[in-house]
């Protein structure tokens, strides 16, 4: 699957309180989450993000809380993919589990600028930017995560596993 989208850039250590502030977590409704997505990092983000856009951020994206609402908010806001040099571990797990594509790609994260339109090939991890002569390469997913995603996420995978034992 390939994604082509416009880039929004963010810095290092974007935490889950910035992605979706705790004050809105009295509801997990996607419309509520989308309306406040990234609000504390950039108050104008919810109004300017369009479906298919891509976030390119700095180190340790998604640090802080375990709230799955963070990747859910990004997905609900239409973010198609997040690229960063590194992700906080619970965020990484959550994103995979709910099917939000995320790519660890330090060179791409450093080189790509806001407003560019880039293309990401999820199967190969190849990231193409109009301003870079060569495509960038992201780290491929470990095999077990590939397996989870092929099954359609953790819940589908577990459903299969449970029924096999039944």
């Amino acid at each position, binding site marked *: 699957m390939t994604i082509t989208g416009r880039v929004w850039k963010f810095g290092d250590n974007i935490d889950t309180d910035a992605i979706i502030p*705790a004050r809105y*977590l009295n509801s997990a409704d996607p419309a509520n989450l989308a309306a406040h997505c990234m609000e504390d990092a950039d108050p104008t983000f919810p109004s300017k993000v369009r479906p298919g856009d891509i976030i390119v951020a700095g180190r340790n994206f998604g640090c802080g809380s375990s709230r799955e609402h963070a990747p859910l908010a990004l997905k609900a806001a239409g973010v198609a993919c997040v690229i960063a040099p590194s992700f*906080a571990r619970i965020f990484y797990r959550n994103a995979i589990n709910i099917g939000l594509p995320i790519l660890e790609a330090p060179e791409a994260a450093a080189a790509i600028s806001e407003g560019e339109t880039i293309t990401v090939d999820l199967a190969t991890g190849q990231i193409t930017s109009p301003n870079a002569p060569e495509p960038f390469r992201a780290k491929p997913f*470990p095999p077990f995560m590939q397996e989870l995603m092929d099954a359609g996420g953790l819940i589908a995978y577990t459903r299969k596993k*449970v029924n096999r034992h039944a």
Partner: protein
Amino acid sequence: MGLTLSQKILAAHAGKDYVEPGELINCKVDLALANDITAPVAIQEFNKIGVDRVFDPDRVVLVPDHFVPNKDIKSAEQAKMLRDFSRRYGLTNRFDVGTMGIEHCLLPEQGLVGPGDVVIGADSHTCTYGALGAFSTGVGSTDLAAAMATGEVWFKVPAASKFTYYGKRRPWVSGKDLILYTIGKIGVDGALYQSMEFGGEAISSLSMDSRFTMANMAIEAGAKNGIFPVDEITLQYIKGRLKRDYRIFTADPDAEYVAEYEFNLDEIEPQVAFPHLPSNTKGISEAAGLTIDQVVIGSCTNGRLEDLRVAAQILQGRQVHPEIRLIVFPGTQQIYLDALREGIIETLISAGAAVSTPTCGPCLGGHMGILAKGERALSTTNRNFVGRMGHPESEVYLCSPAIAAASAVLGRIGSPAELGLKEVD
């Protein structure tokens, strides 16, 4: 090659003799936890799996603590989902208003976690139980849903870093100062994906409450878990509480660590983390003098009896500064009651503190003490991210209960030494 403490526990729960960093394993869990923010999403996902029971009703615990006592209609509905689920699946351990507390204070207190356990919680501060020598870590709601159904979870075995503390503690230095100092040194991703193993002579004299505080903040260094060796102090704590068998694991002498840090306590003064990262730490001598509007003492980091005791010792016979709002929220009903019996609560209220029922409320800017634009709080909680306690243009500074209480009296950031106080052991 030997195994670290976390690797030993993980290997045992995966039915293996040996595991190595980066290996993917399927692990049995001893306890699965969620709260009123994360459980509703987990329940939705659980319902999609198509099982009619949880893997073990004794080992799934849902604690409504974040927006409880229900702050509004939406949070009431979220909390009701937990209550309905707990009833429907016959969960044995049920806690609610009147018996509940902040999950990470509550579970150890109620004897639900023990040494050698593997615990997962849909809450990032699940790493708190590492203080008891358990491998415990935060996961997401979907992970938790799968574990509620199967009693198992996938892990990537973490590499470990070792943190050794030696020397004598300086006055008013607590576990909170040690962990803030450590995060200040290594950064908020200094232990990313790793296990933090704490040890050293200075740790063996540290109280259980201080160890909980330190393990609690391992996530603030990006760690998967933080863990302490089990000793007499641990065993004393679990005695009469823990209802299950437990196993004591120790790290192999030849265990491999990706990094080893040593900290001399002679060099560590009380710490304050400046906005907007827990790693933005300064010694109290550099931080003193900054004016504040609100002081918060409590949370899963510092809402235990030792914390309230220190605060009361400082506030005894003194008054909270007229320009400061001091909010104290004990971690559990039991801590509240113990503090009441010791006279701590009376001391706090006489000094002008507002004491709240146990809840996460102010810690995450949920309710019961939100900051306005431009306001500044000094807090014993664990996070000072932008907007964490209210308005995105408010500020949070993190510190120990001793610094918080002294600052509440001074009306600005300062230390108990400035009030002429000496620490009593």
